[in-house]
């Protein structure tokens, strides 16, 4: 998916109160062929910018003025309530599984939650923006790791082989079978076998597409954590 030309011409809103980072994000998105229609530094401006119908995706910092707590997150969740399925990628300097859960609960798919560190991997970040814009779910490996280690205390995960656990983690991050295969240097078919084994061992209902699969896995991890 990352290399599909879906993202070209995407219209994005950037919300980040720190000028350095706002400029950096804007540059990166524009260098990747997207159009930054608005770059704002506070929650009220973000809400106004998101009201415009011709925005395809928003990249939002969690903490912004006026109260410097979670206005970015709140504005993103509100925007998704007003426009179900509106793609939002939330950036933060900390990952907080609680916030991830609130985002995931705000509707199916088209959400992302990444550490700001990940932006330095420009291609990976741009791919994440595109994946969210096209309805996918992207979670920071740190969030997934937190959920997996939290769930690790329980019995069922121990039934998985180490390889299957790796695959589970990558699935939870929102990766497709093809991406997982590329990451682990195995064939897509092998990944398919692992995912089937995971679903069977964890008693998960079969999920046809990648996004539903992420949510199923996350819901399971969340329930265990």
């Amino acid at each position: 998916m990352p290399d599909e030309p879906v993202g070209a011409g995407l219209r994005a809103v950037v919300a980040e109160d720190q000028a350095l980072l706002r400029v950096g994000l804007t540059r990166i998105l524009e260098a990747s062929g997207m159009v930054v229609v608005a770059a704002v530094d506070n929650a009220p401006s973000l809400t106004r910018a998101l009201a415009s119908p011709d925005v395809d995706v928003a990249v939002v910092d969690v903490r912004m003025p006026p109260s410097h707590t979670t206005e970015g997150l709140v504005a993103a969740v509100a925007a998704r309530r007003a426009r179900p399925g509106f793609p939002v990628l939330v950036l933060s300097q900390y990952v907080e599984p609680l916030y991830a859960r609130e985002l995931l609960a705000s509707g199916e798919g088209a959400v992302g939650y990444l550490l700001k560190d990940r932006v330095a991997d420009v291609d990976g970040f741009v791919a994440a923006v595109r994946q969210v814009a096209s309805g996918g779910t992207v979670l920071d490996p740190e969030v997934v790791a937190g959920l997996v280690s939290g769930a690790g205390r329980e019995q069922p995960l121990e039934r998985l082989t180490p390889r299957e656990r790796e695959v589970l983690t990558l699935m939870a991050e929102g990766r497709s079978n093809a991406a997982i295969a590329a990451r682990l240097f195995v064939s897509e078919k092998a990944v398919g076998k692992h995912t089937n084994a995971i679903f069977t061992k964890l008693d998960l209902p079969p999920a046809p597409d990648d996004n539903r699969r992420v949510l199923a896995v996350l819901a399971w991890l969340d329930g265990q954590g």
Partner: protein
Amino acid sequence: MTDWSAMLLRRIGSLRPTPVDGDALVDRLRLTVVSAAYALLGAPALALGILTLLCIPLGLVAAGFVLALGVVPATAALTAVHRRVSGALLGEQVTASYADTTGTNVVTRPVRWLTDKARWRDVGFLWFSATGGFVMSVLPVGLLTAPITHLGGAVFDGGFWWWMLVLLDGPLLLVWWLVTPGLVRGRAVAERNILGHSRVQRLERRVAEVAASRTETLDHSAAEVRRIERDLHDGAQARIAAVGMNVGLAEKLLESDPAAAAELLREARETTVSALEDLRSVVRGIHPPALADRGLAGGIEALALPIPLPVTVAVDLPRGIPEPVESAAYFAVAECLANTVKHSGASRAWVVGSYDDGVLHLEVGDDGRGGADAHVDDQRGGLAGIARRLAAFDGTMEVASPPGGPTIVTLEVPCRTSQ
């Protein structure tokens, strides 16, 4: 009268039998006089004690109320005298703490008295004064007056038995010498314990103070932690994230647009420098390096250096002042100097510091326009914050800042050095 009472009501001297000299004799004689007074006051105490007992059955008819209106204030007056005498003998203040009776009438006031523990302690005292207390006080008087009586009898009457009694007088006087200070002190302590609620009150007040300063300290440290988190989040962390973005983008543009990539890398390098500056200032805000290396005196000298007006530093302190106190004092001085720069318009400032008798004294002054107020938090910076911080160590801050100046902030923190 005042001279007499001042002479009689001094603190009790030594309880030891030696030295045997004029001063010790005078002290014992005066304590015997005091004992006589204590013993005489046993009579009104007994009368009031009996009347108080009568009040209870008579309370069923109106007479008890009428009687109480006379007896209870009389008891209070009597115990007030005892509080004063015993307090003076012990060298401390013995204070009463009766329940408040304002807004009561002749019927409700006795009812309020009935529920007041302090009044019941007064009643208990009446009986102590009439019984055990009376014995304690009569003894020194008896031990001293018996020999005089015997001698008088022997001289004027001249009987054999009188002379036999005179032989006993040596031991009697010895006992008098030995027991008088102890008995008087024992009675005074008993009176303090029955009548004085000052110790409990003092402890209660102290507990309230400690609880308040602890809450403030917790608030203060929570605010500090939040400030540090905010400083890191907005400063170093954000800058390092920005460096990551710039370098990432530069990497991508390296081949297609080398000039832009070089520009991004240059920006990234500059941002690294400011990230380090941010980290340094956060560290300075937590534990300043000069304070860590040189102690409070060195820390204050380092503080004064970057101040844009002449600051005279005369700080002479021993090493070994507890670190938390040093740190609190350092930030207090820093805040005072910052206020001087921001608000005073002064042409010079000074910091004087010393340590004696277990108290750290610091004085920060300037010749500016004055008008600083410790209670206005926003105007004169964090003076109130300093006071809160010092209160955690039982320290105090006083601000003298008349309009027109000078402003002198005096900080005092009791502390023990580790040497």
